[in-house]
């Protein structure tokens, strides 16, 4: 098994033979300074917490489906999941990137502070919840309550968005190419500016998607909830 050979350029972990703990231990402690630039993870079989807390400029290919929290709190690493992922891929991501070749379950990049998360398929509910500066590009559609309480960063949806989009937004901005099935509290559609088109173009290019920019709509906060006001009567 060449999984723990720090001098090999591509380090391979077969999770049918080794544990998630060994993988993460390697990524945290043995990888930095080893010269390794590429890690391959085989037979993930939906395991949770793969490649969490990585803080190194390394490419990680996960060949198969991953469970919850893959790439959680990532810094610097570029992670590709060649399959589907469970809840909260890239939660609290700080930098680097995560690409999911398939679909993602709920809470993509929850509370992400930086970096880029790309979902090539669809993402389920609450995609981008509480995001704090990261960018997310979804090739397909997103589920309900996406970007709930999102504070900063950008969510680009190339498909449709389910109801409750952008509920209680702060300063994050959402762009949707397809149909918006309903906005959440305090979210509103706004005109696209040249800056918006440039922002979407940049993210689409980085995500590897090609769409007509004119098809995108901008959703941002109306900022009517920025200051608590009883006169709202809890009807937003």
């Amino acid at each position, binding site marked *: 098994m060449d999984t723990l050979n720090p001098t090999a350029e591509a380090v391979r972990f077969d999770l049918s033979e080794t544990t998630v703990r060994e993988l993460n231990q390697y990524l*945290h402690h043995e990888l930095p300074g080893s010269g390794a630039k590429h890690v391959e993870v085989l037979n993930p079989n939906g395991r949770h917490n793969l490649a*969490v*807390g990585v803080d190194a400029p390394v490419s990680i290919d996960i060949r198969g489906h991953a469970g919850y929290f893959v790439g*959680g709190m990532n810094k610097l690493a570029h992670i590709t999941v060649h399959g589907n992922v469970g809840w909260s891929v890239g939660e609290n991501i700080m930098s680097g990137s995560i690409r999911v070749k398939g679909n993602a379950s709920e809470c993509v990049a*929850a509370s992400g502070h930086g970096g880029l998360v790309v979902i090539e398929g669809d993402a389920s509910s609450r995609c981008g919840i509480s995001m704090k500066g990261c960018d997310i590009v979804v090739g397909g559609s997103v589920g309900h309550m996406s970007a709930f309480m999102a504070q900063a960063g950008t969510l680009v949806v190339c498909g449709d968005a389910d109801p409750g989009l952008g509920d209680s937004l702060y300063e994050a901005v959402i762009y949707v190419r397809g149909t918006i099935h309903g906005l959440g509290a305090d979210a509103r559609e706004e005109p696209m500016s040249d800056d918006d088109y440039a922002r979407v173009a940049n993210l689409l290019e980085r995500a590897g998607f090609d769409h007509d920019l004119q098809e995108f709509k901008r959703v941002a906060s109306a900022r009517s909830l*920025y200051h608590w006001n009883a006169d709202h009567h809890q009807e937003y």
Partner: protein
Amino acid sequence: MSKNIYIEPNYTYGDHTLHYIQQAAEHGLYEIRGLGAKRRLPTFDDLTFLTASASRYPLEGYREKCETKTVLGTRFAKKPIELGIPITIAGMSFGALTAQAKDALGRAAGEMGTSTTTGDGGMTPEERRSSKTLVYQCLPSRYGFNPDDLRKADAIELVIGQGAKPGGGGMLLGQKISPRVAKMRTLPEGVDQRSACRHPDWTGSDDLAIKLSELREITDWQVPIYVKVGATRVKNDVKLAVAAGADVVVVDGMQGGTAATQQVFIEHAGIPTLAALRQAVEALEEIDMVGQVQLIISGGIRSGADVAKALAMGADAVSIGQAAMMALGCNARHYHMNGELVDATEDFAALGTAPGYCHHCHTGRCPVGIATQTPELEKRLDVDWGARRVKNYLQTLTMELTTLARACGKSNVHNLEREDLAALTIEAAAMAKIPLAGTDWIPGVSGY
């Protein structure tokens, strides 16, 4: 001839209720305030110690050794927390409190060999530097939460809820969202900030287990993970936290404090700390995890007697928040500046209150410079002075704790036991399941 006027007291619509109705009628708003429940509740005051006599053998006053060392997080963590005393400082955010206040708490705790805890808003460099042992909270808002600070922590506390507002999120009103607070929380300056009531990346106890595993993986299983719950369905919540893999469970009772939430929440949600502690201990007993998972109780712990009674009922440690603030000078008539005491009564009056009655943490206009983000007010807390006072307070609690333990014949405060206690009220007897004094009666459990 003058007519006799009889003023009949109205217990349904008394002064307090009348004031509430008139305020609601005038403003159309519920009241938001800081601190914890003020209503009369069964407390540790309703218990007393059955100290040694002919049937028990006491230890000699302050001379014979009485161990206070406390170890937390022995279940999974490679580096459990070792504290000098079983009294920890609860999570209070930078934002709610000044950086200076956090610094002072850290220094005092360090001198006493105990821990402090971050809060909603992240870890400040000041509190990391000053706190020998620092617990890093993972809260629903995740404000300022990042892997670098996570790895600097001596323990992690995943907060599901707190006693002042179980099931509710938090709020930090715009006047406290200073440039530094806004930057740490990634928010625009001056907005009324809502702290989420649910975690963004997991739901339910099965997910919680995976979340705790993630935090362990990121920190390489080195440090303990606490799970904190507000006291409502305590038995279920404690069992679920243990099943999810907690090293330590923190139960925050109804008297727990907050920087700001709705008064209706503070006074009308959750169960008293006394009842919560008993249920938490029973939960651990029922799943045979006493000693494997440590229990911290908080919410209205004020004195060494409270600490001793909590330990006797089965807690491994207590956590104090409001009392630590009060030791810093919260609600005192004076603050300390340039070596002198300065009267703050007028500033309390400007808030519509008086020293001893203030709960206006949410306004940011703290007259003694503790719960504010206004630079001029921040100067009112002398960090050295505040740290010394908190250290003195912790030292006093510890001396009172060991005094009672010795009198019960215990050479280790953790040897205090339920059998050392009697209840002074029927309510306390029922909630704590401690016999009513002078009887063998525990309502609902045993006969007179």
